[in-house]
């Protein structure tokens, strides 16, 4: 299987000034991450707020130039491609459809816009936009509405239709259901699964919700402070997590089972700060099973980045 998309040691470093008079901070949002997603696969990326998920998504989309490393799609470096070529290969779906859709354009125009930019003839544009809207479960009548006249779930369907109208190979979804209610979330997750199969899409699905990712992904990557600390087939990561952070994340999922009470999470309180990444293992200030070596020596790169786990190099 060839890699649809691969990240080779990509980093994103921001030089940030905290407040007007603040000191400069060097924020390492994504730290030397390598990942490949084979054609047709769905990769789920999970981690806490601020761990670098959205930044990584922007790197994968070519919306942000990496500070180091590169992203390749079908073997070609993404940054070297022109915008149109990129748009035909890879498209995003973001968390908040309200802010990613132009409120002054009708739904039909929004979905047809990428076609216009790609030079598709006017007559064909309308037809393709309407057919894509129907694929995501929206009626032709809705094409005449403005985004403000739709529900959150319907707006997310519009965003998905817009992303798919050029029939890209790869879809990058950054928290596509986080702003939606459970009953609507399930509709959108089913839709993504269905579209993925019928368009043979390669999918990257980012979420802070492990359960959402589990439902969709073949493979899982767990991010912590800019690095992927564990990766593997979804079933095995869920059935037998190895990294102490993955274990904590899994333990903190509150399944709707009364009687279980609240889990014990022996996690340290330290707040992860990408401007101040701890020496040694970056998780050590919160790790319940850290050993002295963890404070000074970073674990080797691999599918599980922890001194206590026998890991396969990646």
């Amino acid at each position: 299987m060839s890699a649809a998309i691969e990240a080779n040691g990509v980093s994103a470093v921001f030089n940030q000034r905290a407040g007007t008079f603040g000191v400069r901070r060097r924020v390492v949002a994504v730290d030397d991450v390598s990942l490949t997603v084979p054609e047709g696969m769905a990769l789920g990326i999970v981690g806490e707020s601020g761990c670098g998920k959205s930044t990584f998504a922007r790197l994968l989309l070519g919306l942000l130039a990496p500070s180091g490393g590169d992203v390749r799609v079908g073997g070609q470096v993404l940054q070297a491609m022109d915008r149109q070529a990129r748009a035909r290969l890879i498209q995003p779906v973001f968390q908040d459809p309200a802010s990613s859709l132009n409120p002054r354009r009708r739904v039909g125009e929004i979905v047809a816009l990428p076609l216009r930019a790609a030079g598709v003839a006017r007559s064909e544009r309308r037809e393709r936009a309407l057919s894509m809207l129907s694929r995501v479960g929206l009626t032709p009548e809705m094409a005449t509405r403005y985004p403000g006249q739709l529900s959150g779930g319907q707006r997310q369907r519009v965003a998905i239709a817009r992303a798919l109208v050029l029939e890209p190979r790869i879809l990058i979804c950054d928290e596509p259901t986080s702003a939606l209610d459970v009953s609507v979330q399930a509709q959108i997750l089913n839709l993504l699964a269905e579209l993925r199969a019928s368009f043979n899409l390669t999918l990257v699905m980012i979420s802070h919700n492990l359960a959402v990712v589990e439902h969709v992904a073949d493979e899982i990557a767990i991010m912590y402070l800019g690095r992927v600390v564990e990766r593997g087939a979804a079933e095995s990561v869920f059935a037998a997590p190895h990294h102490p952070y993955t274990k904590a994340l899994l333990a903190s999922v509150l399944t709707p089972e009364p009687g279980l009470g609240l889990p014990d999470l022996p996690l340290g309180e330290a707040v992860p700060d990408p401007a101040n990444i701890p020496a040694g293992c970056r998780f050590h200030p919160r790790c319940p099973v850290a050993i002295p070596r963890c404070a000074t020596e970073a674990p080797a790169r691999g599918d599980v980045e922890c001194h206590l786990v026998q890991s396969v190099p990646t």
Partner: protein
Amino acid sequence: MSPVLEVRDLRVRFGSMAAVRGIDLAIERGQTHCLVGESGCGKSVSALAVMRLLPRGAKREAGAIRFAGEDIARLPERAMRRLRGDRMAMIFQEPMTSLNPAYTIGSQMTEVLRAHRGMGRAAAVERAEAMLTRVGVSAPGMRLGQYPHQLSGGLRQRVMIATALLCEPDLLVADEPTTALDVTVQVGILKLLADLKRDLGLAMLLITHDLGVVARIADVVSVMYAGEIVEHAPVGQLFAEPLHPYTRGLLRAIPVPGKVRRGEKLATIPGIVPRTEVGFRGCAFRDRCEFATQECAEPVAERVEGAHHWRCRLASGWLEAA
């Protein structure tokens, strides 16, 4: 024992939009009552109405709000202000709605104690420190000198909880207190709330949209839909045998790790939550309900079996019959 909070037929509207359409609630000492529902169903408006903190434009009608036996629905604002922050307290999803960014944690906490308890500065500082320690804030002395923005989200939430509990209220209303937090931090805050409820004998009204949270912390649950409580039961009963089709649909739509095989579809509830105008009749769920009949367009009476209440034309046992 009479409940700490008892709400009868509470209605709130914004213009012609009926946001809360006649809800009843009762919470006893030492009890966590979860109000759960999807966004816009009226959870926050109900909570604000109980605290008498409704925004301008909201109109509250009829309904009794009894707090510790006294009807506070018509209490003058001055008396309400004495109650709030003292015997009844509220915390929010976003701590910055109740913490002032311009003042240190210390001055905000001690101000509460001076205002409600007339405490001197030294005693107030001591009490604030003790409370911060109680809610698991490390180095409390140092925190008192910090501003809210210098704290992480989880710490801010703890500080807000500590501030709300300074005067040992009888009732704590918590509106989505962990929704903005990471899952690992959420567990810690929920544990804290559960411990405090037990130790202080609080009556707690906890609002959330997350049925996972409900399952793990509630004693009693009220499920809201379009401004009404459609089902109400002790937590075990509600999850073991949901009787309202909406509750049942909601429970099946949650992805649970290991429960649904990949490739299999999640159960969904088609359609969206309707907007209810004043004068809306019948079951608000009927556009989305697979069991709806013409009967459902008429007012639907509440059914009661033991501690289980639900508002649906279907009697218990419908599931087996269906």
